[in-house]
């Protein structure tokens, strides 16, 4: 798999943050058809259950189903238990972040972030997935 072939899912209730991440993804070679969006954890859960996704960029504070609930749901499903997840959030509580590592989170991007930080993270993760 090359970076350009990867399918990513952006899960965030903020439409502008989804566009912001989509823009950063385009700059590491991901075309629009490989970038998918969900506005909350429930929509994301439905999506990853029926579409091949290589990596999820996940916000925590969302309506309907928050990021933590989404994470616990996918880890409980055998077919999604290994799905790579990166948190993109304002969360800074060390104990809570440690807990997310225990749920298999492979990266964390603290908001606010610059587009360059996100591009570097996507690039690093995609290289690691090859």
């Amino acid at each position, binding site marked *: 798999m090359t970076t350009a072939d990867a399918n990513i899912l952006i899960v965030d*209730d903020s*439409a502008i943050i989804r566009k912001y991440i989509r823009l950063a993804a385009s700059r590491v070679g991901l075309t629009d058809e490989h970038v998918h969006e969900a506005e909350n954890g429930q929509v994301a859960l439905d999506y990853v259950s029926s579409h091949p996704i290589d990596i999820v960029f996940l916000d925590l504070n969302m309506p309907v189903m928050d990021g933590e609930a989404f994470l616990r749901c996918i880890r409980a499903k055998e077919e999604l238990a290994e799905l790579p997840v990166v948190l993109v*959030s304002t969360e*800074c509580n*060390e104990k809570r972040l440690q807990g997310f590592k225990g749920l298999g989170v492979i990266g964390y991007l603290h908001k*606010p972030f*610059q587009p360059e930080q996100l591009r570097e993270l996507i690039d690093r993760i995609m290289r690691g997935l090859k």
Partner: protein
Amino acid sequence: MNALTEGKVMELTCSILENMAFMMLEEAVDVDAMEPTFHTRIEYAIDQEASEVFLSATTGFLEELASGMLSAEPEDVSAGEEGLQALQELSNVIVGEIGRALGAESTPLIVGLPEVIYDIPTQKEGTECLDCVLDSMGETLRVLVHRSHLAER
């Protein structure tokens, strides 16, 4: 309880906007000239505090914010759409940084969801009010924190 001052709120807001949208802000001088059109509200709770953060911004400020985030020209974004989305996200990030200033790295911080409101309410009795107004090329953002300390209720 950690100290939170207007200066700290101003400092963290400037830093966030520089990171998110490449905006350079300074303290507004002519506050009375501000005519904010858009407002948001978000709640947070940490330790013995349950507070609200209100943001108010002018149309031009929102266009600059959204276009900075999306690497677009200000005329290519709408203040009422992308601008308001950006203001809600900004309120979420500001609360995250306020929480960090108040010790959220080791103390649980509960953050609500940002909402668009039609005006900023007057200060409630018994709350501490932090009020700062920032300027970016004549366009303004007001950050208002109404802090309520549970032990004092």
